[in-house]
């Protein structure tokens, strides 16, 4: 049996986290290929709908990469994101989706190594939780 690879959607802020992704690419650091990166201009743009829709259309997990505290290019986008994510955690709980499937990571470090380690760790965590529908519906 081939090894299980979860579908992970990564909403990635185009500033710090994406620079990290660029660096990882430039340095040819490997990270799991089953994570789909969707760049957003700022994580303040993320709405609960974007996260819920990802789950609806078959994602096993959603990761959000925001800039570190006080480092948002648009002053307070990552704070908005925090409020939205907290709301979505609550929504996921009563929708029957394990809130652990939604991850948030603040990127103060823009090095390629850090980016790759975040990706690898999150992928491992989700691989252990398993595919979405098979587990939750049981």
């Amino acid at each position: 049996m081939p090894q299980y690879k979860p579908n992970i959607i990564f909403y990635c802020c185009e500033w710090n986290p994406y620079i990290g992704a660029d660096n990882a690419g430039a340095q040819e650091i490997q990270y799991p290929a089953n994570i789909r990166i969707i760049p957003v201009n700022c994580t303040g743009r993320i709405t609960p709908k974007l996260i819920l829709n990802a789950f609806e259309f078959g994602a096993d997990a959603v990761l959000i990469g925001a800039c570190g505290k006080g480092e948002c290019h648009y002053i307070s986008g990552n704070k908005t994101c925090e409020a939205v994510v907290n709301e979505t955690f609550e929504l996921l709980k009563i929708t029957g989706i394990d809130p652990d499937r939604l991850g948030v990571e603040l990127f103060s470090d823009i090095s390629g190594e850090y980016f790759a380690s975040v990706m690898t760790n999150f992928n491992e965590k989700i691989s252990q939780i398993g595919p979405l529908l098979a587990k939750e519906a049981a």
Partner: protein
Amino acid sequence: MKLDAIIEKTNAYYCLECGICTGSCPISRINPNYSPRLFVEKSLLISEEELIDDSDLWTCLTCGACSKRCPSLVDYNDFMRQTRNLAIEIDNRGICTHAGTIQSIASLQKKDFVKKDLSWITDDLKIKDKGEVLFFVGCSPYFNIIFNDIGANSLEATKASIKILNSVGTEPVVSPDERCCGHDAYWTGEFETFSQLAKKNLDMIEKSGAKKIVLSCAEGYTTIKSIYPKFFGKLNFEVRHISQFIAEKVEEGELSFKETDLKVTYHDPCRLGRFEGEYDAPRKILQAIPGLELIEMPRNRENSLCCGSSTWINCTQVNKKIQVEKLKEAQQTGASTVITACPKCNIHLNCTMHDNGFHFDMKIKDLSTLVADAILA
């Protein structure tokens, strides 16, 4: 042509162009560019393609004020709904409010994500797994999270309703398999979503073996009571709104209330009032509470002004102005509390009180919260 069938079915062909609908429409009063009369006329004069591409299609609140007064019995609400069914085929959609969160919850539930967390049911509320009476919770646990910031406290009314059921010795079934009733999907033309949700809910109700469904939500009430049978055959259970349930119990003498000195006014939700004709039950309850003074707004019962927004689409400046108009009308009665029987009216009115810096010295309360607080222990 599909539009011809709609025109025939909803009596739109009999329009006399009298304009009573436009005169009654809360939107037209503020935005003169929108007119139900013109829209019906357009449907008869222009082509189907042009009509379903019109963005005015999504302005209608489906509050039913026009259809109620129409001398030719044109069912404008249903005309709008069916035209919307056609419009979404060419991807003409309304603008979702709250970033579409509520719509995506409905579509998640369509895909069996329903393991609803019942942890909000506190220990003092008694529920059962199987029984005669089923309490249909609806969306209030979701609203409670999404509208936490405006202090709408949607769950308060739901908990109060269960408390009331308990106090007359009924332990209701609350099913974790329950889905969204599909009300919003139905009125925004997403018939496919609606029918999937409805079928699953009917399955759930059948499995629970309940003979009576009680709801604290006016929209869920009209959807299950009047819309489900239209498409899925006769219901083999009874559907009651919590206000009707309480009114019955008050008449039978099973409920008695504490004395209070509240001055209240009652806002008729369109789904309970104009749609289902239930104007009396809530008023009976309010009159049964000793000391409580009910002051009617000038526009009440079938003339009640809409709370300003519906089905979570197209909430604009116009909708805000309707809400302010409603609240001003309520304040002029001198009442300290506005009582309503629909969680959405509660949210919309609270929203207007919360922002904008208007100074309304009132509280918005759900009927069941008021009753639960007033019950003699």
